[in-house]
């Protein structure tokens, strides 16, 4: 049996995951919760996701539109804006880098060799 997931881990990546899912298909809050649950975030609740959607929309990373719902009030459908897609690309790159770094630390692998800083004397320059 797997250990329950640390909520803080989810909280950090949830905006990126919401943007990624919405980039694939425009949808509304509850359907997005269902999509993310189907993807493996079993413990995700509407109470966790709705504030994230509100914040992303407030920051201009999501745009929304209202669509009439058969069950009552109009539903709000979200999709990423152009800045939202840019932010997603940047977050995706940062995430890949973080995963690589975390993997190296967890496995005890040496970090990738950095190029020598500019201006530093090269071994050849020290030779007489």
């Amino acid at each position: 049996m797997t250990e329950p997931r640390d909520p803080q881990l989810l909280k950090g990546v949830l905006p990126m995951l919401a943007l990624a899912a919405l980039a694939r298909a425009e949808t509304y809050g509850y359907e997005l919760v269902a999509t993310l649950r189907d993807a493996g975030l079993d413990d995700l609740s509407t109470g966790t996701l709705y504030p994230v959607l509100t914040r992303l929309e407030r920051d201009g990373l999501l745009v929304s539109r209202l669509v009439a719902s058969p069950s009552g009030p109009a539903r709000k459908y979200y999709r990423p804006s152009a800045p939202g897609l840019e932010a997603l690309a940047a977050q995706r790159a940062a995430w890949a880098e973080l995963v690589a770094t975390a993997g190296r630390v967890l496995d005890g692998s040496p970090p990738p060799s950095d190029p020598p800083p500019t201006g530093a004397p090269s071994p050849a320059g020290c030779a007489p």
Partner: protein
Amino acid sequence: MPPTTTTAHPTVLGRRERARVRRWLWRFSLAMQDHPAREARRIRRDLGAALLDDAGRIGVDAALREIGSPWRVAADHLDALDSARPRWNDGAVLATLLGFGLPLYMWAAWAVGAVEAVGAMGGGRAELSWLGVPMTAENSDATYGLTFPLGWQPFAVSLALGALGFALGARVWRVWRRTPVS
């Protein structure tokens, strides 16, 4: 392309179910008092629509269980603000305590002391003044107390002390807000 929905059998909510959703939203509004008002109203409206929609699809019990405590959802929204916001409720409580509670306590202490002093001098009546309000302290076998007309001075003092408390509280809050949280 029009969006597709997963709604299979939406149900129309009864009055009782709607009341439960409204109660949740009311508690949420209480918890959001320190959020900028216009945005808080928009968030409440969106949440209300989403909750009613969810409740119509999965039932009110499940919808409310899913969304969880209104205090926690409000806390998530407050955490997401870029900067600390004025705590108007705390400011109002502080101003009330300083503007009304403190003068009331001071006046009560003064009044008891005045009446006791009259008694210590052998009893009788004494014409006094507190913050410009004429008062009569009496301590005799028949009467123990203070009589006074209701003047504007105590209200002016209360108002000034309240404003002072609010200004001091605001100043302290501004200083505290700039303190980095590690």
